[in-house]
């Protein structure tokens, strides 16, 4: 009963998209006006801009705040936005920005040097009294200086070559002084986030819906965009719809225009009806599994190499994903800055893997699981909820490892247990890792002990680590974060990728996209460099 109608809708869909393609050629002048319904999977949390890494937060902040600079998502070059021009000294410790005149926040106050200085003082140093944490992208910050009302200068204690790109990310969205005067606990109320962006928060029902309205006087979008002036849409309605089938069904039934988060297995039914899948790359550290060598089971390089060789990426991608999930060819995505293809270090070779485990002294026991000195090779990992089908990926890796005589336990667990256990290498010898950011700093963010510390080295938040620290890795990572010379910095990124794979610390699986779907009449959707949507140039062709 299902087979035939499906074929029918498929061919109708093809027909529709074919006629549609010709129609869109005739009418590609953007139409102004209209209300846009966007279905989000999760409610936003705290909207303090440095918390914009959480996708639901980024999807809102990107519409209501502007950044000093604009990172062109195609070229990844930094272009003018609120800053018309900038100067960086030779060792990247002093940055001077010339601001665009006439920019105002939605409460009418001016966006001038004083406001920008206050923003980065807060993002760079935090504010203890208001409990505002520092931003991940602002490293080694010292102080700001207001040179004149439209010129602001920032000083850094150590070279910070990543800062320029750091001013372009969602986490560096400029907000008004009144927003920065609020304590952290109150910034979950979207109506209190006053930015200068093309949209303004009109109303919100916390945890349920949010309504944005276009600012009619907006005239300071990124300088090199074709679209200038106010946004085309009049209004955007965000509605939290956590159930996958409801989000997709509502889109297909015409109750919504655009949705976030669609799993690979749902892509076919959406595309079959002429709807569009958007899967922008996150341009950072690939979706990977990492080892915590402080755990004696994975302390031996031979064991880690064997486990890496036993992961069959092709099987994972063909079983669980689609063409929108490219196979990993290095630690970072092929669209990331400083990417070096290292396919020969990412081979699938189960026979060699067995030989390496034999060499390492792990011999198959009576139950088929390898063991050494009575220690069974049984590993544990938590699934990572934000990552697509994380549990299924881990279970499939578990099956691939099982053929080798290695057992992988996959835990779901509550947020509290996960956070605590992830700090203990004995409890979680394997973990899922991934960060998106279009700057080489992303590699340091992922692996450096005082940042996300994916390998759980000594010197991080965890007090459970006994000895493990890799000084060589850390010095490469420090070089990435502080080398002002671009060529040398990219060389460090290349070194880090090779080293992480040579040590088999990381087993990259695929390049993780952010997946969205939109109705065929939705035009002009753009994504910033890490895959968060921008609705500034969206218009409705209907």
């Amino acid at each position, binding site marked *: 009963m299902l087979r035939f109608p499906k074929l029918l809708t498929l061919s109708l869909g093809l027909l529709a998209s074919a006629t549609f393609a010709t129609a869109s050629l005739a009418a590609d002048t953007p139409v102004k006006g209209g209300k846009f*319904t966007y*279905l989000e999977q999760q*409610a936003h*949390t*705290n*909207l*303090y801009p*440095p*918390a914009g*890494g*959480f996708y639901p*937060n980024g999807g809102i902040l990107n519409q209501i705040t502007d950044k000093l600079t604009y990172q062109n998502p195609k070229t990844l070059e930094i272009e003018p936005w609120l800053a018309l021009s900038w100067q960086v000294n030779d060792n990247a410790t002093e940055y001077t920005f010339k601001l665009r005149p006439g920019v105002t926040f939605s409460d009418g106050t001016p966006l001038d040097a004083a406001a920008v200085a206050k923003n980065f003082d807060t993002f760079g140093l*935090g504010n*203890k009294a208001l*409990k505002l*944490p*520092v931003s*991940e992208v602002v490293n080694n910050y010292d102080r700001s200086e207001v040179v004149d009302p439209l010129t602001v200068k920032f000083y850094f204690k150590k070279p910070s070559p990543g800062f320029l790109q750091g001013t372009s990310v969602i986490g560096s969205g400029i907000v008004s002084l009144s927003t920065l005067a609020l304590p*952290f*606990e*109150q*910034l*979950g*109320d979207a109506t209190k986030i006053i930015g200068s962006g093309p949209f303004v928060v009109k109303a919100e*029902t*916390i*945890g*349920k819906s949010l309504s944005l309205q276009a600012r009619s006087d907006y005239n300071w979008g990124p300088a090199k965009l074709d679209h200038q002036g106010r946004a085309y849409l009049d209004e955007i*309605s965000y*509605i*939290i*719809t*956590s*159930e996958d*089938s*409801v989000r997709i*069904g*509502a889109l*297909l*039934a015409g*109750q*919504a225009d655009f949705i976030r988060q669609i799993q690979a297995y749902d892509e076919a039914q959406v595309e079959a009806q002429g709807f569009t899948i958007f899967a922008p790359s996150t341009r950072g550290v690939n979706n990977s599994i990492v080892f915590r060598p402080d755990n004696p089971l994975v302390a031996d390089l031979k064991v880690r190499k064997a486990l890496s060789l036993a992961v069959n990426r092709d099987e994972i991608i063909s079983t669980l994903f689609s063409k929108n999930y490219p196979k990993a060819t290095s630690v970072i995505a092929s669209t990331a800055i400083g990417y070096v293809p290292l396919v020969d270090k990412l081979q699938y070779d189960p026979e060699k893997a067995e030989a390496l485990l034999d060499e390492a002294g792990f011999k198959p026991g009576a139950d088929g699981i390898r063991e050494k000195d009575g220690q069974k090779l049984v590993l544990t990992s938590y699934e990572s909820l934000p990552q697509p089908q994380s549990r299924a990926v881990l279970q499939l890796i578990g099956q691939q490892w099982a053929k080798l005589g290695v057992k992988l336990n996959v835990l779901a667990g*509550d*947020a*509290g*247990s*996960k*956070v*605590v*256990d992830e700090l203990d290498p004995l409890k979680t010898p394997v973990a899922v890792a991934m*960060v998106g950011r279009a700057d080489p700093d992303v590699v340091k*963010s992922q692996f450096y002990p*005082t*940042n*996300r510390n994916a390998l759980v080295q000594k010197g*991080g*938040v965890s007090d459970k680590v006994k000895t493990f620290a890799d000084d060589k890795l850390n010095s490469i990572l420090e070089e990435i974060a502080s080398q002002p010379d671009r060529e040398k910095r990219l060389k460090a990124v290349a070194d880090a990728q090779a080293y992480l794979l040579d040590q088999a610390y990381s087993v990259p699986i695929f390049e993780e996209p952010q997946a969205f779907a939109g109705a065929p009449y939705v035009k002009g959707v753009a994504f910033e460099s890490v895959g968060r949507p921008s609705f500034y140039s969206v218009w409705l062709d209907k």
Partner: protein
Amino acid sequence: MKLYVFGRIGQALLVLWAAFTLSFVLLQALPGDAVLIKFLSPDFGLSADQINEIRAAYAVDSNIFVQYGRTLFNFLKGDFGYSLQAGVPVSAQLATNMPPTLRLAGLGFAVAVLLAVSIAFLSSMAPFAWLRNLFQSLPSLLISVPVFWLAIMLIQIFSFRLRLVSVINPGPWESLVLPVATLAVPISAPLAQILIRNIDEIRTRPFIAVARAKGASEARLLWKHVARNAILPALTIAGVLFGELVAGAVVTETVFGLNGIGGLTEKAVGNQDLSVLQAIVVISAAAFVAINLAVDLAYPILDPRLRNRAGAER
């Protein structure tokens, strides 16, 4: 009677305090805490020192008795604190989420009662034996339908296929149709079951035979004699079903994308958002206590025998 009511209110307060304390202890016993979950999340990428500063600012590592005393004191003042995860005052969250849940639960319950009474009476009044059998077995069917599945089926059929109601951006009443139906089904089943049992049992009692001998019609028998007796145990169950209602609301709210206490609880549990959870526990306990008190006070009104006993004993 007055003494009885005061005694019950005293008991209720005791229950509330116990619920507060127990939930505090249980939440403390869980691994990790809200601050850790929030700030260790990779979205912030903070260093150990920065996290320790924040922990100190929130005083999460201070003495547990001090924390307990402070939280209890604030609660007594009516200050529920802030949700760490959502970044808004708990009172604001309750204000936006309570009314929709009350509306949903209230209507769901009303429809469930209607459904249960109809099933029960039809199962003893319907014309044919096979039809009566059908109605008698309906509760077992209804209780075994998973709420989650029912919700998705209703949406797929009535919203996406037939396009009768909108799930996204519905009107205030339109938004309630499918969720109320979803919620009413599992609640009505046990109620109907108990009503059917009681009706069957009471019909065999001698006083029914007497009434029938005096010439009462079947309908009069059912309404006047059977129903009044059958409704008491159902009332007790109704009080207990309130818990079911809240549990059902979690699923219903998630699937239909409604805001409400159910969804709020689910998120707060996941993130160990202490202040939100404590407020929800206390409010739910208060609702439970109030409903059971109302049920107890309703007994004497429905049953004159209990009226005398309550008066004599207390």
